[in-house]
């Protein structure tokens, strides 16, 4: 869609203003019930006007010239509010652009608004927002997935052409699967995290949500690269590989228990489809996968408890009144954080406490190494690994909020890629019971190109 749209802009068949006003109209019509946006910016038309002038002037369009974007509420845009859907950041205005925002801007993108999410990206349903749940456009009684639910819905419901999300344990891929769009979690370090409100720093990555694989690719190309403000970001090495031919199916990802039978059927169809298209299918084994979620629920809250210590009512956000400093901290954090955030901070504080480090955090980091090794071993035998993105179809709003563990199990297939740092993408593959199903493709470090190549085959099933 992006390339075709830019071609139309260049030929003068459409203007950036028409494009933006079309999306703004759709937002006005659909968003009151979907609640994908936390805020729609008032300067998008102004930006579109500038771009129209440039095109009229005969400037060659940049890779994202005039493309309207939705941005997750945890990515900073200078001069705009950013809140990670938390009360503790109510009223906070960003003082600088995130690195990826700067790059999108330089590529010609227009920002339509910021999107709803689970508070501080903690959740798999966008129900944990302090500003109300977002609804799935395919069935409004159901969740859109999370935590980047607002971004996925904005794209799925034509309220933005593309969006940015963040993915710590599946927060781009699972909502993309639930909403029938494409979502990419790049290799850890492929995209700068500067300007992303941190959740778990060794796992977080920013990535695109888009209508097509080609669109996700254009956005990824625009935002990737090293940045001095994120010491873990690197210059992406050039892909060395041939065209991917062999697809691995890890037997550990095909559980009978806890897995929707119809989702499983769709995944099997996808495998058959790729076989017909000439790919070789090979069974592989990732034996430590079964420990991934347990390791994640130690590493992630530990990093959360450290990262969220900065939200104390001192420098920004609302500050509670109390008689001493400790009281101000404790009261501000009680009032500002929602229940899931408080739960993870306390859990993280526990696993990092003196005497428990070796039993929990140290052990989890060792298991993480073994999970990474699993991928290293099998990527000697196959080019890409295919799995379901999520074990279930989009569930009903309220269905899993009472039992945190049942919500955590939503991430069972997406978490291993974050722990290992490998890139993974969810591609829509038809529907089951009238709801979208996503297929997850996983590639070796910095081999996003393989995901795009297989993804382009897969999305053409219809």
């Amino acid at each position, binding site marked *: 869609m992006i390339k075709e749209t830019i071609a139309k802009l260049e030929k003068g068949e459409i203007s950036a203003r028409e494009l933006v006003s079309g999306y703004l109209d759709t937002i006005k019509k659909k968003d009151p019930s979907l609640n994908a946006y936390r805020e729609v910016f008032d300067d998008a038309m102004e930006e579109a006007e500038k771009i129209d002038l440039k095109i009229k002037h005969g400037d060659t369009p940049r890779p994202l010239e005039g493309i309207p974007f939705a941005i997750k509420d945890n990515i900073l845009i200078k001069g705009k509010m950013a809140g990670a859907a938390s009360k503790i950041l109510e009223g906070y205005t960003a003082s600088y652009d995130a690195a990826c925002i700067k790059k999108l801007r330089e590529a010609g993108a227009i920002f339509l608004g910021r999107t709803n999410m689970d508070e501080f990206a903690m959740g798999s349903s966008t129900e944990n927002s302090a500003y109300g749940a977002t609804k799935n456009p395919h069935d409004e009684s159901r969740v859109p997935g999370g935590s980047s639910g607002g971004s996925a819905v904005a794209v799925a419901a034509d309220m933005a052409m593309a969006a940015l999300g963040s993915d710590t344990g599946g927060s781009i891929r699972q909502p993309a699967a639930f909403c029938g769009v494409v979502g990419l979690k790049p290799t850890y370090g492929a995209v700068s995290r500067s300007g992303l409100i941190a959740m778990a720093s060794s796992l977080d990555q920013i990535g695109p949500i888009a209508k097509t694989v080609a669109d996700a690719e254009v956005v990824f190309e625009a935002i990737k690269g090293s940045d001095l403000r994120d010491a873990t970001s690197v210059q992406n090495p050039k892909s060395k590989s041939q065209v991917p031919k062999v697809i691995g199916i890890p037997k550990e990802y095909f559980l009978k228990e806890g897995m929707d039978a119809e989702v499983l059927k769709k995944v099997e169809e996808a495998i058959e489809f790729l076989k017909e298209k000439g790919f070789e299918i090979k069974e592989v084994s990732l034996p430590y996968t079964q420990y991934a979620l347990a390791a994640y629920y130690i590493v992630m809250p530990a990093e959360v408890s450290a990262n969220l210590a900065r939200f104390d009512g001192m420098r920004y956000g609302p500050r509670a009144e109390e008689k001493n400093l400790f009281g101000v901290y*404790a009261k501000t954090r009680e009032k500002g954080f929602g229940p899931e955030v408080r739960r993870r901070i306390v859990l993280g504080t526990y696993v990092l406490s003196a005497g428990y480090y070796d039993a929990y955090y140290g052990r989890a980091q060792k298991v993480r190494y073994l999970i990474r090794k699993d991928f290293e071993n099998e990527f000697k035998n196959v080019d890409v690994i295919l799995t379901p993105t999520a074990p279930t179809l989009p569930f009903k709003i309220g269905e899993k909020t009472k039992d945190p*563990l049942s919500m955590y199990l939503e991430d069972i297939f997406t978490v291993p890629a974050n722990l290992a740092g490998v890139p993974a993408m969810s591609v829509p593959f038809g529907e089951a019971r009238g709801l979208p199903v996503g297929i997850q493709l996983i590639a070796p470090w910095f081999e996003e190109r393989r995901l795009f190549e297989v993804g382009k085959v897969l999305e053409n099933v219809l």
Partner: protein
Amino acid sequence: MITPEDIKKLAELARIHLTEKEEKSLEKDLKSILSYVEKLKEVDVSGVHEMTHAVAAKNVFRGDEPGEEDDGTLLTEQFPEEERGYLKVKGVFERD
């Protein structure tokens, strides 16, 4: 196993005030999550290194210099309390 006193202590360490009701529900949630992560004990991790980063990390240095966007006003405008342009907080060593 986690005790009610543990929860109180953790809340204090994490600087979060909890109501009694929440202390109880957190105790229950933590127990259930911790019993789930128990399964990591099955794994033989002897001789395995701790993985701290997904990509080989090395030190990266840069000069600590203000960039063009850091004129500071957007930052200081965020202060919940200020006096003559300075951030105002409660005394760190004050008595109750």
